[in-house]
Each structure stands twice: as C-alpha cells, then as structure tokens.
C-alpha cells in the first residue's frame, strides 16, 4: 500500500508544507543566516591569530572547514525542533491518523531542512571569502566539498529527527541537541589540529566522523596539504570515503529508528 512512489509523493507534500513556514515567518531566515556569519567571524577573529599552525599555513583557512562542518550539524536542530513542535501541536497525531506513508513526515522534514543548510553554506562561504578564506584547489573539488557537507548533514539530521521525536517538548530540543553536537565538534580536528591530541583522545578524534568530514572539506577546498597529514588512521587518510560510510550508516540506522518512534509517538 505504501509504495515508494506514495512515500515520495507524501514526502513532497510535507516538505512543501514545511517550506511555507519559511515564507510566512521570514524572520526564521535571519537566524539561519546570522549564526553562520557569527561563527565565521568569531572563529576567524578570536582564534584566527591566536593559534599558530606548525606548517606555517593560515589558521583562518584551516578553520573554515571546521566551521562549515560544525554549522551544518547545527542545522539539524531545525529538524529536531520542527518535529517536536509538530508533535506538541498535535499535527503528528493528525498525520498518523491519515492513510499516508509513515516515513513521509520524516523524509519530508529532513528533505526540506536541507534548504537551511544550503543557505547557510552559501552565506558562510561568502563571509569566509570576505575575511580572507580562499579555495586553493579546483572549483569542482570545492563543489564536491560542499556536496559532502550537505550529504553528511542530511544523514546527521536523522539523528536529530530521532531526538525531536523523543523529547517531551520543543523547549528541550536545544539542550538535547547541544549534548550531541558539542562533543562531536570539540572532540574533532574542527578547531584544533589533530597533533594537539594525544593518547586515547587522539584515537577518538581520528575516528570521529566530524574529523573526517572536516579533513575532507579542507582537502577539497585545498586548505590543507594531504601529504602533510600527521595521522596514519584509515579514517584520516580516506576522509571522503570514511565520511560517506558514516553518512550511509546514519541513515540506515536512524531512519528506521525514527520511523519506529514516530509510529509510537503519543504527542
């Protein structure tokens, strides 16, 4: 009954509905656009001069990959809070009483939220250019870098969808999300070079998918020299592949988990 086509159609209806909200509450966009700008400016001006990288490359340039990665993870908060709000307002109950695809409410949500990340990547890129960040490699590679950030962020938004369905009210979403996002970004090479971690922490950082995403973005933007990599971990030597493996794994695990949670949601 719930053929893939029906699921896609229903997802499109839901995604369209979510996007109408952006149209009706344009001030939302201000938040979407302001925080990336703020992240880029804060990180490049506060830390930009404070940390010296051993190989003489610019820390500001080094930072951008990390700021991009962190910001797209934060984009997942929209997914969690959107679902938590639908739950609270009783819309999830209404959807669940309709003969529609169960997964569609979640697929439509994660899909429409990609638009926030596209916007924030554009704004961050432009802000980065203003403060002196440059793509040193080919344009094609750079586009691949942006695409990888988006794809990983999409997968990550399934974790956030799960969180959004679990929390008792939308007010709790932010706190719960920070509990996931903060350790992921700070136990990574996003802001601090890999070399500054040692022992067990170093292993954690090397295998953290956010490190791989950051490393991949830096390499694709030409902001780091892969041959200067101070790690022999497979995840760091093949950051793109490792990121894609995580991307697939997150969707495979959290899509069904979220759908299950959606079915039993009590609103």
């Amino acid at each position, binding site marked *: *009954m*719930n053929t893939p086509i*029906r699921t896609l*159609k*229903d997802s499109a*209806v839901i995604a*369209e*509905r979510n996007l*109408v*909200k952006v149209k*009706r*509450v344009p001030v939302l966009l201000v938040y979407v656009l302001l925080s990336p700008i703020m992240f880029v400016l804060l990180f490049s001006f506060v830390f930009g001069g404070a940390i010296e990288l051993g190989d003489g490359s610019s820390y500001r340039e080094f930072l951008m990959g990390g700021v991009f990665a962190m910001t797209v993870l934060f984009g997942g908060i929209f997914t969690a809070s959107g679902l938590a709000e639908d739950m*609270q*307002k*009783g*819309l999830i*109950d*209404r*959807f*669940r*009483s*309709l*003969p*529609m695809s169960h997964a569609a409410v979640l697929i439509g949500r994660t899909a429409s939220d990609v638009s926030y990340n596209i916007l924030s990547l554009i704004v961050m890129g432009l802000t980065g250019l203003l403060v002196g960040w440059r793509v040193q490699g080919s344009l094609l590679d750079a586009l691949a870098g942006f695409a990888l950030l988006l794809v990983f962020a999409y997968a990550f938004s399934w974790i956030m969808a799960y969180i959004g369905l679990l929390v008792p009210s939308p007010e709790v979403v932010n706190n719960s999300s920070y509990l996931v996002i903060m350790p992921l970004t700070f136990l990574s090479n996003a802001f601090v070079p890999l070399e500054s971690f040692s022992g067990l922490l170093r292993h954690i950082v090397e295998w953290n998918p956010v490190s791989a995403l950051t490393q991949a973005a830096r390499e694709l933007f030409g902001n780091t020299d892969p041959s200067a990599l101070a790690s022999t971990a497979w995840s760091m030597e093949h950051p793109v592949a490792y990121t894609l493996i995580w991307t697939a794994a997150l969707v495979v695990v959290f899509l069904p988990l979220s759908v299950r949670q959606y079915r039993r949601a*009590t*609103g």
Partner: protein
Amino acid sequence: MTATIQAHGLVKTYGRAWALDGLDLSAEQGTVLALLGPNGAGKTTAVRVLTTLVKPDEGSAELAGIDVLTRPEQARRNLGLSGQYAAVDEYLTGFENLVMIGRLYGLRRAQARDRAAELLEQFSLTDAAGKPSKDYSGGMRRRLDLAAALIVRPPVLVLDEPTTGLDPRSRIETWGVIRDLIASGTTLLLTTQYLEEADQLADKITVIDHGRVIAEGSATDLKARIGGERIELTLADPADLRLAARTVGSVTGTEVYSEAGSSTVTAPAPHGAESLMTALRELDTQNVRLLDLGLRRPTLDDVFLSLTGHSAEQAPTNDDSTPTKDNR
C-alpha cells in the same frame, strides 16, 4: 447487522493508571454515539485506540467492518478524526491546510483544491481561506479542524470533545455543523463532558468513568433510570451542608448528593411536592437558612451523579478556558 463502530473489552494502562478498563462500545451505521464522561474518564484514550493512534493492551476494535488493530492502514481510509485540540498547521492558510490533508489522503492536487474550497464554503470559512490559521479564532480553528476530518467524506467520523474551549456562540455553531453531518448519514462518535451536548446530538449515550461503561442508552432511557423529580436546594451558609443533607435524606429516604464545600444539595423526591414541603418544614425547624429551594425534572447531570457518585460539573466549565496540552 454488525455495528459500524465497535470495540470490545478495551484495556489500556499507563504505568499504574488504567485509562481503559474493559471498555465496550458500539454505534450502528448512520447513528451518533456520544461518549460522555468527566475529565480523565478515558474518552481520549478510547478515541486514540479507535483511530489507530494507540494499541490497546487488550481488546478489539472495528470500524466499518475493518479490524483497527490488524489493518490500521485500511481503517484510516475510512476514518476522519478531529482530536481534542485543533491540529491544524498554524503557518498554512485554511485553504492550504485542507489541500495538504486532502493530498495526504491520496487525492490529486486539483481534487484536493476543489474539495478544500467546497468545505471552506460549507464551514463559513471562505473569507478567511487565505489567512494563516494562526490568525483564526478558536472557533474558526475548530471548524477548520472538523473540515479537515471530512475531506474524503469518510464513513466514520470521530470527534474528541468538539466544543471544549469554545465560547457559547461557537459551540452552538459547531452543533449546527455536526447536525448537518449527521443528516448526511455519517456514523459518528463524539466525546463530550457536557451532558447537554450529548442530549442534543446523540442517538445513544455511553457514560464512562475510570475507563469503564457505567451506563448506556438514549437520553430518555438514562433519564428514566433515575426517574421522578428532584429536590434541589441552595444553602445560605455552606456550613449547614451536612445537616441539610441529613435532613433531606430523612424526608426523601433516597440518596442525597452534596458536593463537599459547595452549598447545594439534591435528592430524588419520590413524592414530589409533598416531599418538598416536608423537607422545607424540617429544614426550618433545624434553622437551616436557604437561598433557593425547588423541585425540578431530572437532567443527565443527575444520571451522572447517581451513577458515578460525583457530578459531571466537576469538569471545567464551557467558557473560553484554554485547553492544556498535558491531558491529551
């Protein structure tokens, strides 16, 4: 003929609370069943089981011959639900809300648009069709929610407290809308805390409390069950409550109802005016001062009172009390 809505032995517990405790329900095709009970009686839980939102711990339920538990997908096709709180997207306009729901029922976009326009007209929302629903009044939102439940003209319609939280005027309007639906042959289950509402709209009333049926029948049946007129008196001083109740009880020889802390006493009066006169004399001898004393015909309230031992008037009053979210 089997009933269009039926449930047998529904049990649902939440931790140690028994929301449903062996509930049976049935409504024949084209009739209106009112599920009447105070706050916390289990009305919403029953609705959630029938509308596939919650699996009961025990029991079975069917809608239009379809087993709700084993074929929920199929059941949803035959079902329109308007929950206890209007569940419309506040950012979408009334029109957009209805089109969305229509498409999720599987209508094509053009069909959904036609049907949406038709329903907005029917529910007097055409003027507000292009406004985001967050700008609607409570009554308008409720009507939009009802309209959403009707998009595909489902054979079974379930309305959970359709008028709770509405001002009296919107409430009367909503009754009008529901009467039109009834006339169109839909089988309807509606829950309410208001006896008057059940009396006005339903063919059959099932009174529930603590997740169990405590009485069932037409409004007339229920009234007949407690028979006779009632003495009702209002005390000048609530401190006299126990004394007054005892006195009235000794006169009527029936059970007396008096809410602790209130100043009213009611009791069935088997001998009508004669009981009233005697009670009045006795109360006077006891120096009980009265604000009001009278004889009246039984209402559904009295049915409820005699069946559950507490008044349905404990439920919130029907003015614009804002619904809280934690009782869904």
